[in-house]
């Protein structure tokens, strides 16, 4: 029993880790105030769910989930390229609302508020990952791959250009770098990984509906990225583990789920506010937010 609980937590940590690391790529390293990250998560989840429900193998579905999310990332970067600071934040936030409205209203595709139940557990080349333990192993492998890829990106010269763009976009352009292209790639890559996380989420919970992808879900991720510290992969990992595990004791005090849910959000919101006021650099952060 206890085992199942810890496996469940580990899986959640894994999914949040991918979300947080991918947001870190766009926000911490490139300086893109992307508050629409959840939209990419949603797109990945729905794409993967719909594809597998139509019989497409999981491995193709999850890759397409990433690719289509990445595509949306690219597309979003075009009109938002020249937006600064809060307008960028608002436009990306509005993007979340638009995706929410689409998933809610395009009922012929997404079944609207009824959501998509019965999403199949992953199965790769005949190997089924239906037990939670096997799912955990799958997630572990994917998390490691994602971490490795993101680390490779940020430690490479490309990563330095990302950071340069964050620190001073004009100076970066004057050095001959096309920052529009760089920002588009950063947002696209960030969206790719968020889409992968979305797919994993859909296949784990096996039911998704529009309410799983609102700005409420953004708060824990934003919290993790800021507390861990911008542009720190290590900080993100530590923050994810601590923040996901933090509200869990509430369950043991005897609160029902309907209480634990909002309390988690309250805790995350409070922590976010405290960090913004007292330690905006987070714990391992290289940079302060904006």
């Amino acid at each position, binding site marked *: 029993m206890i085992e199942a609980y810890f496996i469940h937590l580990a899986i959640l940590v894994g999914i949040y880790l991918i979300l947080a690391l991918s947001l870190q790529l766009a926000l911490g390293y490139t300086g893109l105030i992307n508050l629409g990250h959840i939209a990419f998560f949603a797109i990945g989840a729905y794409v993967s769910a719909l594809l597998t429900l139509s019989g497409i193998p999981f491995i193709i579905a999850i890759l397409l989930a990433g690719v289509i999310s990445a595509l949306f990332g690219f597309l979003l970067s075009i009109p938002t390229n020249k937006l600064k600071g809060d307008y960028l934040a608002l436009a990306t936030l509005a993007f979340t609302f638009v995706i929410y409205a689409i998933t809610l209203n395009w009922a012929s595709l997404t079944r609207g508020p009824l959501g998509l139940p019965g999403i199949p557990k992953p199965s790769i080349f005949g190997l089924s990952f239906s037990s939670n333990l096997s799912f955990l192993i799958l997630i572990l492998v994917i998390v490691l791959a994602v971490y490795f890829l993101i680390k490779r990106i940020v430690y490479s010269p490309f990563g330095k250009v990302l950071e340069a763009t964050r620190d*001073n976009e004009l100076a970066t352009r*004057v*050095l001959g770098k096309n920052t529009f292209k760089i920002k588009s790639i950063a947002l696209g890559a960030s969206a790719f990984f968020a889409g992968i996380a979305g797919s994993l989420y859909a296949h784990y919970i096996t039911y998704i509906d529009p309410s799983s992808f609102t700005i409420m879900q953004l708060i824990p991720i934003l919290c993790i990225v800021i507390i861990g510290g911008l542009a720190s992969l290590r900080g993100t990992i530590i923050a994810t583990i601590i923040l996901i595990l933090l509200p869990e004791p509430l369950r043991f005090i005897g609160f029902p789920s309907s209480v634990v849910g909002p309390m988690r959000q309250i805790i995350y919101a409070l922590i976010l506010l405290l960090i913004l006021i007292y330690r905006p650099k987070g714990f391992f952060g290289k940079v302060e937010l904006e």
Partner: protein
Amino acid sequence: MLKIQNLSKHFGGVKAVNNCSFDIKENNITALIGPNGSGKSTLFNLVSGIIKEDSGKITYNKQDITNLSPEKVSNTGISRLFQKSQLFDNLTIKENLLLAIDNEDTKFWKNLLGKNKTTKEKEERVNKLLKLVEMESFADKLGRELSYGQKRLIEIARTILNPHKLLMLDEPIAGVTPKLRTKISEILLNLKKQGATILLIEHDMNFALNLADEVIVLDEGRVIAKGTPNQIKNNKKVLEAYLGD
């Protein structure tokens, strides 16, 4: 080499650059001087592609670069130093410099697949440059840890690291110690020897007039005098412009 033709730019009701025209000779050190507000920095920003001109033409090596974006202007071979420090605060000095010579760093897939490793050759060049400006010990310090003068030196180093043909320097020695001033002078003269063309804005008359081959004087957005340092020193119009009307 660089040809400015009838360039104009206004901000609100003020004409910052007013039908300005001049030529920069290749392999010369040209100083652009003039009282505050005469349009020098605006002119630089127009050439760099940072702001858009109202009218006029900018030609570089027979190529029309009038409306190019900053990165495209840079890639034609024009390098730029700003008045305000533009060093990347959160990158190390070494990383700041490598950015200037790495041409493959915007190629995502190449970098992801690990095919764009910072070669020994690039590191060598950066180290040599740091040695030249006597700042080897600063290689791993973050941009924000340097003092203004140190930042200036590194930025000048960064400007010259890539073999650019035209260097546009906006007040390279402002706020810099006399010793550093001499060093920068040496560096610029050396660059000229290696074939570079230098255009600099400077308020320090001595520095500008001693270093330059040619001087162009701007006032209220247009050229009021042009000539050798000696000619400019004795030019009445220039004197008037500086002493105000």
